[in-house]
């Protein structure tokens, strides 16, 4: 019961990543791609947490912690580069 619901959640997260990838390929400008990259990063945090639940190891959550801390840095650098210069 619980495993079935969590597998359905994982499938929905994978579909979200797939739609963001679609916008990444299709998007007309650099900023669209940056936003798609951001959505893919935030969705990956949830996928990592699900993998950590199915594996039963608490140590996998550290990777999600590093994602949450450092993922915004590259997006900030992209935005500052587009705006006027680093």
């Amino acid at each position, binding site marked *: 019961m619980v495993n079935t619901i969590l597998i359905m959640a994982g499938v929905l997260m994978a579909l979200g990543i797939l739609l963001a*990838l679609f916008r990444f390929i299709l998007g007309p400008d650099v900023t669209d791609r940056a936003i798609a990259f951001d959505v893919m990063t935030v969705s990956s945090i949830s996928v990592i947490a699900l993998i950590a639940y199915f594996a039963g190891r608490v140590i996998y959550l550290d*990777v999600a912690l590093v994602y949450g801390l450092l993922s915004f840095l590259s997006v900030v650098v992209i935005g500052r580069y587009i705006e006027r210069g680093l």
Partner: protein
Amino acid sequence: MSILLAIFLGLVILVLAGTAIYHKNTKVAIIAAGAVGLFASVLYILLAAPDVALTEASIGSGLSTIIFFYVLNKIRQTND
């Protein structure tokens, strides 16, 4: 179940690598290379290597993109 997730991540990685090679805009290619590092990190977690995944998430996806954009900024300043 993890095999299907590995197939999905592999397809996403290959599509992003093709985008990184063949797109004309250099900035889009750099962001696509960063996204390849991101999904490679999820693949490392599936392969039971969380330490490698930690390093890849911080270096391959974060710091590498920052270095590429730093060099692009230096090139743009040289033109002025």
